């Protein structure tokens, strides 16, 4: 019980309690005492500063080490940006004519077929799409149908009703919008009737099995749609990709471009369609997520029937590491380094009291034990939050800039997402510190507590990014282990209408950002509850 020797941290508020008995055990006093303990131990304060510095430094180094080679110089990409500010892929074959005002387009679709790269054709290198080795087949998100688009410029606003490879009839608009219609693929036996109706900025999509009984799939409001828009038929099909795990050396993706072909007839136009004929154009080209040359496409009109073939995709652009595009979340890879420092301080914040015997003084001064842990949790969380906040504010612009200078394309994100990444990084460190403190209180051994927290946070992430398990195993780890909390750092959302593999190494987490964060919080809450129960029951 010699609390005097090596502990500089006797709470200063204690001596005063004789003169003010009413407030001697108030939560404010306990909190103040715990804060004094934290700030007077130099090693802990240094630990938090180190956590922040490591987060920034590793983000910087990893950006500096991520040079993208495109021949001799840096790569230059043109990536269209959609109406919502996100990077998009916008390449397809478009058979169109202007629509000057309100009106509608109706069509019957009798077939959707396509071509895929041969599975046995070996790897198709980027830039060498082997057209000869294509065989019949469709990607799940190959699509063809009718579309109304602000202009033929890539990234312009649009709404479409389409038939897809495996996902039935859909209404899609402005890249991120996706509404499911009836399932099934059109065929001669069961054709699909599709209709788009424009009224001002509002476009409604309909589907019918017989051309008489229509159901509305949905409506989309495209703000600022010009009076004259381009409308017509389209076809597109995303690249085929197979990811092969190569253990610690990462994974390699093989695949190639694909084609989709839609057959249409009974084309009906109503409203303000100026006179003139149909025109066919290839819209767009490759992008970071589509390293294969665009296959072009074309259309063929015979009588009232149109056959339209296209390649590409109309969707949000995200490649999860498959291409040279980088998400700003990679500026925060240093968080794992900072996390270890934070966890060490968090665990020691309580175990040092046991080692020095200070815990008995603490408990004598404030007998309500649950409050002590609550106060400790608040103090350590606040300290880690500040360290993480400062680090993230510095790391994101710094690493993003270096990365861009190195020829990487950085996916744009909106300000709200950036705020979530910064605050989320701070919050993850804060909750991890609480988890470490709680486990330390339960185990009383800092080495085992630190190991436990690192093994449940860092090791699952390591296993996931190095493809030690099959993808499904990785994704379960990232859902259940506390590392799920790092989902809050995912900058580009995971849209179901894009068929890219959600690869952890590419920065994709299986849970939505806030759900993942809740998983981490649940672990910390459970550990804290266990620690409170044990602290109450056991002798100190």
């Amino acid at each position, binding site marked *: 019980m010699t609390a005097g020797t090596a502990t500089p941290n006797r709470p200063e508020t204690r001596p005063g309690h004789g003169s003010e008995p009413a407030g001697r055990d108030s939560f404010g006093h306990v909190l103040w005492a715990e804060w004094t303990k934290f700030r007077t131990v130099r090693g802990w304060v240094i630990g938090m500063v180190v956590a922040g510095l490591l987060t920034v430094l590793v983000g910087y180094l990893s950006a500096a080490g991520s040079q993208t080679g495109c021949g001799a110089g840096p790569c230059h990409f043109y990536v269209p940006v959609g109406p919502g500010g996100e990077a998009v892929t916008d390449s397809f074959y478009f058979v169109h004519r202007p629509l000057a005002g309100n009106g509608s387009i109706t069509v019957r679709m009798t077939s959707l077929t396509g071509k895929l790269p041969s599975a046995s054709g070996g790897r198709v290198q980027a830039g060498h799409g082997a057209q000869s080795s294509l065989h019949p087949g469709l990607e799940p998100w190959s699509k063809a149908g009718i579309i109304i688009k602000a202009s033929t410029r890539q990234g312009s606003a649009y709404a479409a009703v389409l038939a897809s490879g495996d996902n039935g009839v859909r209404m899609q608009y402005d890249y991120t919008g996706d509404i499911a219609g009836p399932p099934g693929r059109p065929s001669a036996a069961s054709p699909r009737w599709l209709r788009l109706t424009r009224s001002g900025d509002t476009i409604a999509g309909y589907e019918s099995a017989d051309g008489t009984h229509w159901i509305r799939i949905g409506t989309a409001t495209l703000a600022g749609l010009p009076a004259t828009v381009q409308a017509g038929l389209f076809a597109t099909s995303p690249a085929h990709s197979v990811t092969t795990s190569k253990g610690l050396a990462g994974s390699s993706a093989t695949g190639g471009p694909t084609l989709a072909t839609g057959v249409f007839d009974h084309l009906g136009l109503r409203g303000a369609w100026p006179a003139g004929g149909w025109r066919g154009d290839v819209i767009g080209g490759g992008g970071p997520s589509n390293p294969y040359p665009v296959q072009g496409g074309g259309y063929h009109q015979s009588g009232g029937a149109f056959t339209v073939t296209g390649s590409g995709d109309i969707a949000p652009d995200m490649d999860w590491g498959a291409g040279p595009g980088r998400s700003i979340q990679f500026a925060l890879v240093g968080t*794992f380094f900072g996390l270890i420092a934070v966890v060490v301080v968090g665990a020691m914040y309580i175990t040092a009291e046991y080692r020095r015997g200070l815990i008995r003084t603490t408990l004598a001064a404030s007998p309500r034990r649950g409050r002590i842990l609550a106060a400790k949790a608040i103090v350590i969380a606040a300290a880690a939050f500040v360290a993480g906040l400062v680090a993230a504010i510095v790391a994101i612009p710094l690493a993003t800039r270096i990365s861009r200078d190195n020829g990487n394309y950085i996916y744009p994100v909106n300000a709200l997402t950036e705020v979530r990444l910064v605050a989320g990084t701070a919050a993850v460190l804060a909750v991890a510190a609480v988890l470490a403190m709680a486990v330390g209180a339960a185990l009383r051994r*800092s*080495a085992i507590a630190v190991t436990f927290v690192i093994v449940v946070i860092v090791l699952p992430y390591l296993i996931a990014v190095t493809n030690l*398990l099959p993808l499904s*195993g990785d994704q379960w780890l990232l859902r259940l282990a506390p590392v799920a909390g790092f989902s809050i750092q995912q900058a580009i959302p995971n849209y179901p209408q894009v068929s890219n593999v959600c690869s952890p190494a590419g920065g994709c987490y299986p849970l939505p950002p806030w759900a993942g964060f809740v998983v981490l919080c649940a672990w910390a809450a459970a550990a804290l509850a266990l620690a409170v129960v044990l602290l109450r029951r056991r002798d100190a």
Partner: protein
Amino acid sequence: MSQALQAPRVGTRQEPAAAGPGLRDVLHAEWTKLRSAPGALWLLLAAIGLTVALSAAAAAAARCPAAGCGQDPARISLTGVYLGQAVVAVVAVLVVSGEYSTGMIRTTLAAMPRRLTVLGAKAVVVTGLVLPAGTIAVLGSLLAGRLILPGHGFTAVHGFGALSLGDGPVLRATVGSVLYLALIALLSLGIATVVRDSAPAIGLVLGLLYLFPIVAALVTDKNVQRHLLQAAPMTAGLDIQATTGLHNLPLSPWAGLGVLAAWTAGALLAGGLLLRLRDA
């Protein structure tokens, strides 16, 4: 310098004939300390259990749908070493840090003034514990893989025989994994001697092991990635587990283990130097 450093020196001069305790005494003392503290034994049992459990889980998750699936059954079966090494590191860290936290280190050094001998004895005792525990863990993992993997497509039809120690590469992976665990223990011992405090020491060890490969996986420059994988103690050391696709490895198996050995030697050297120079 202060008394802590001086005192043992004085003690040796008083008994020049006996020249302090011999190596056997030091070893015996270290063994007694380790054996009489309950933690180490439980931790080693945990290391064995966790290693075999994760290996079995990895084997159960693995699939080989067709011939030429590019998987390495030995490596899959030994996945548990990723987890087991953390527990082994804790054991080694506590052998040193435990003495500093209780102040026992001053007694130890007073009784055995030759400090490098103390560190050497600790290294011998830790190695002596980790080698048998590691052997059990690795053989258990291999057995789990041998039982589970054939049910998941790792069959003769797909080009895989049953895992057997009679197979040269599998034997190398097995022996190498045991040696890997021993080297990790010694690395941790060295780092703990430098850092002294258990929490930062284990944080440093696990950071060194786990964070390198994460950065390597996220860096896009293939050259930087390769160098990181060659330099990192864990990824280089675990090259020893590879039995297929050796030409794809950043380093050959034994060279990889050599990199880890160099890290270990460096850590022990730094630890030994600081142990001699600093007050306890």
